[in-house]
Structures are given as structure tokens and as C-alpha cells.
């Protein structure tokens, strides 16, 4: 097994384990958020092994950086206590969740190998900044511009809902 493949499986497993740790760490929200950071960074490494370097950098900047900071802010503002999540209320939910998750995982493990199309070879400049730029501004110029309007809508919305005085 080549070195990238070793890293791929190693960090793939780390992503799954830390994602589970995030979901199971119901009592301690800060620990859950930190597990999320581990998931994000592991995914970034997976992207690197798949030659998608720009996506890996964005993953670290946006998800592991900005978004987790926002999560921590919310955790801090809500000031959750340990007994906010009483275990008795969650037993049924947890049980149903585990059964459903196992069911979905089983179905996919069975279905994916027979149903996926063959993977194409990636072009040599895949994932480079030039290729990403060309894709963004030429092939996907419409979604790119629409996304900017989407962000504008989100900004205006945040101001409308949160500004102290709207005059």
C-alpha cells in the first residue's frame, strides 16, 4: 500500500471515530465541538491524499477555523449545564437513532459496490488553483454569481433580525 493510501485510510478512520465521538458526547458540548474539529482536520487530510489541495486548504480555513469558532461562541452564549440533557429523555431517541444508522450503513455497504459507476481518471492539473479558477469563472459562472447573491441575502437577513434598531 502506498503512502497516500495509508494516510487516506488512517485519517478516514479518524474522521469516522471523531464524528462518532462528537455525536456521543452529548453531555459535554465543548468536547463535542472539539471532536468536530478533529473530524474536519481528518477530512482535510483525506482531501490532500485525493490531490484536492485547494479544497483541503478551504476545509481547514472555513470549517475547522471559522465555523467551529461560531459553534464555540454559541455553546458559550447558551451556557449549557450538564443536566440540561437528562439521559432518561434521550434513551428512546438514542436507540432509534442507533438502529436507523446501522440499517442505513448496512444497506449502503451492501449496495454501494454494485451500484457505483466506474471512476474516471482525473486530469493532471486537477485541484490546482488555475483549474479551480477556470472551473469557477467559466464553467460554473452562474452558480458562482448566484452564490454571491445568496450570501448577500444572508447578510441582509442577519442585519434585519439582529440589529438593535431598524430605522
Amino acid at each position, binding site marked *: 500500500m502506498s503512502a497516500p493510501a495509508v494516510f487516506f485510510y488512517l485519517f478516514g478512520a479518524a474522521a469516522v471515530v471523531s464524528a462518532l465521538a462528537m455525536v456521543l458526547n452529548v453531555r459535554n458540548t465543548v468536547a463535542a465541538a472539539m471532536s468536530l474539529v478533529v473530524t474536519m482536520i481528518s477530512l482535510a487530510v483525506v482531501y490532500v491524499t485525493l490531490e484536492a489541495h485547494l479544497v483541503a486548504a478551504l476545509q481547514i480555513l472555513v470549517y475547522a477555523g471559522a465555523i467551529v469558532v461560531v459553534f464555540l461562541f454559541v455553546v458559550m452564549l447558551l451556557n449549557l449545564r450538564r443536566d440540561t440533557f437528562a439521559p432518561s429523555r434521550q434513551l428512546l431517541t438514542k436507540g432509534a437513532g442507533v438502529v436507523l444508522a446501522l440499517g442505513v450503513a448496512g444497506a449502503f455497504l451492501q449496495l454501494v459496490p454494485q451500484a457505483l*459507476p466506474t471512476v474516471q481518471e482525473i486530469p493532471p492539473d486537477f485541484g490546482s488553483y488555475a483549474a479551480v479558477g477556470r472551473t469557477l469563472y*467559466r464553467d460554473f459562472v452562474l452558480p458562482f454569481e*448566484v452564490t454571491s*447573491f445568496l450570501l448577500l*441575502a444572508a447578510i441582509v437577513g442577519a442585519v*434585519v433580525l439582529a440589529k438593535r434598531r431598524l430605522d
Partner: protein
Amino acid sequence: MNAPQLDMAAIAPLAFAAFGALFVLLGEVWLTRRRTNEHFINAALSVLSISFLGLSVYCAGAAFSDGTTRVFDPANPMLSLDRFAAYSIALIGIASLLICFASISYLPQVGINHGEYYALLLLSTAGMFLLVGATDLMALFLGLELMSIPLYVMAGFDRRNLRSNESAFKYFLVGSFASAILLYGIALVYGVTGSLGFDAIRAGFPPGNPIGIVGLGLLVVGFAFKVASAPFHQWAPDVYEGAPTSVTAYMAITVKVAAFAALLRLLTQAFGPVTASLSDLFWVLAALTIVVGNVMAVIQTNLKRLLAYSSIAHAGYLLIGFATGTVEGYGAVLFYLLVYVFTNLGAFAVLMALAQGGRDCDTLDDLAGLARQRPGLAALLTLFALSLAGIPGTAGFVAKFFVFESAVASGQTVLAIIGVLGSVVSFYYYLRLPVQMYMSEAATETPRRHAATGELLVLAVCAVVVLFLGFFPSHAPGVLGAVRALEWARSSVAMLY
């Protein structure tokens, strides 16, 4: 490297609405520096939005009568302006435009006249224009989000009102959940076909592939959330009740048109032959939605909740057309949407005209004695209620007739019978409105304001359309009747194949 050949005419309606939002945002800043009269600023921004929406509708109308298909980027097709898109854009554009007219006096009455309202409305409308013209799952998803995010904010626009806050938050949570389900469906479809474009999916979709079927099912569930079809409808009454009435009208009317039109295009263009296997799924959704919507509407005392359940029931009638899976059925759906827009808009416009002094008119008791105080508004609300119920002589009857006819013609007789029985139940709760207005008196009489010009205009347009389509279903030469409108709808659907 050569530049892509872009056809700007294909995105003209979308661009007018989106850039209109920028002008509204800038215009508000510019006007508040120079004028202090809030009502003037509100009216000016509304007129600005109306003119941009008017341009969009004009472009769509021109594209519809032209009949050609324009693709924004032929090398990488994601958005096209064809007959179907033009029909839907015109419908959504006219509805948004009329809501802007009615908002001129409604917003100051409930004390929420901030210019951002019109900017958000235009952005959301731009999202709907993208949604109905999208021929690529990425554009479809972006359109859906651009439509939804401003709507979440608009639902909470009355910031001091707890109900409005609750409405916004519920809508945001359920809407994000629905978007996630839809996105999962998109991911699975991409997984089995390796492409996001509708044409490529149609060519590369393996018929028996279980993952593909799961993906298609998740896409349908995502749309079922957006159109509030049972069993994915629970959010609708709470959200419709809490939002300001003009926003409720906008959500109930335009979102339904955009989501149904996008689903129709997705099923015919991307999944053509596979769609037949979904007939049973739509059968169950339609029957369940009709029953739940009509039965729950009977026990409501809040007008907005009543109209919410009524709009759920109407989603059920629309789903009958999807269960048939024929061109006639889909054509009947598009015609039904046309009637749905004007009938519901009329009903909501009456409620908007009755809001005053910071209070919405939203309970059945608020209607007591209306016939004596404002006989015109009472008569109009009666007309729209009768059309919603589907009394002969109104557009609502013709629309239901076409849908049920297409169901019977394709062998779905049981579903048509369920629909007719649902309509019979609906007479009960729609007729409670005239009974309340004409036969009971208010305990304490408060003087009601006169309806403003904008509201009167909206009411007049809606009443004319409802009566005209109801009274002239015939196919007389040169006369624009219901049959002619149905032909427009059918020709729009037929070009999708």
C-alpha cells in the same frame, strides 16, 4: 482559451429581480438621507421593486409568446428560459408584484415598514426564477436556497412579535432539514449517474439501481417538505400563523408555484421514464394530503391557520396531477397553479386590508360584522372563499374540474373521488367565513380603515381573473378563457418532453 458563449437573454428575468434587490438596498440608504417621511420611502421602494418585477414579467411574457428555448451557457447548460420557465416566471413575478402593491399600506399598518423587506422579497423571487428554469441539480439547489433564506428572515420580520420569531425559527429549522434531505438525494443521484445536468441524468440513469431510486425518493421528499404535503406539513400552520400576513401570502402562493414547477421539470426532464414508478408514491401523498388538509382545516379558528390547512389541501389536489404522470395531468397542475395564485392572493389581500393599528386580522371573530362595515371587502372575501372551495362559476371550480378530469382519464378514479369528497368537506370551513361576516355581529365595534389604493388594485385584479376564468371556460375565438389558459399550460408542459 476562448470565452464561453453566454446568452444573457436567458437570465434576464433572474437578473432584473436580483439587481432590483441591490437597487432597493441602495435606494433605501439614498432616500433616508434626503427624506424623513417613512411612508414615502416605503412607497418609493415598493414602486421600485414593482418596476423591476414588471421587467422580469415582461421578459418572461416575451419569451413565452416567442416559444423558443434559450440556454444561458449551451456548453454547460444549467439554466434555460423556455416556455415552461416563462409561464412559471410570469406567474411568480405577477404574484410577487401584486404582493408589493398590497404591502405599501400593509407594512406601515403593522409597524414593520423597513426597506429590507422589498430587497429580501426580490432576492427570494430571483431564487424562484432560478428554481423553475434550472436544468441542473446544482442550479436547482442554489435556486431553492436563494428562495428560502430570505423567506426565513421575512417570516420573522415583525421582530417584536414572539409569534413571528417562532415562525421564523421553525421555518428555518424545518427548511434547512428539507434542504439537507434534498441535497442528500442530489448526492446519491450524482453518485450513480456521475452528472448533475438533467439531460445527462436522463441519459445515464440506470433504471434498476437501488441507490438511484433512493436518491430520487429523497428529492421528492425534499420537495414535499417545501410544498407542505402531508406527512411533511406540520410546520406550515405554525409558520403561516406567526408570519406577517403579507409574508404568509408570499410564502403560501409563490413558493408553492416555484416548488411544484421545479418538481415537474425535474420529473419530466431528468427522470422521464423512471417517473412512472413514482405514481403510487404520489397517489399516497395526494390522498393523505387532501384528507389531512381538509379535516384539520375544519377545526381551526385562526384565519391564517385555516388558510394554511387549506393550502395543504390544495397541494393535495395538485399532487393528483403528479399521480397521473400524463401531459394532461401536468397541464392541469400548471393551470391549477394559475388559479391558486389569484384566488389565494385575493383572500390574503382582504386580510391585509383589514389589518390596522399594529394588529393583524387573523381570527374568525375579527370578521364578525364585516358585511355591514365594509360590504365590498366582505363580498370579495366571500367570492375568494367560494373559489377556494370550488363552487361552479368561479375559477376554482374549473381548475379542480381539469385536475379531476385528468385523473379519471388516466384511470385514477379512486383518487379523483377522494379529491371530490375532500372538496365537499372544504365547503364547510370555507363557508364559515361568509357566515361569520354576514350573520354575526362584533361584540365591540372598532371602526375599520378604508382599503388603500394598492390593496384595491390587487383585489380588483384577483376578482376579475377568478370571475373571468370561472364564467368563460368556453373556447370562443379571440376570447381569453379558461380553455385557452389550459392550452398555454399544456403547451408549456409538452415542450419539456
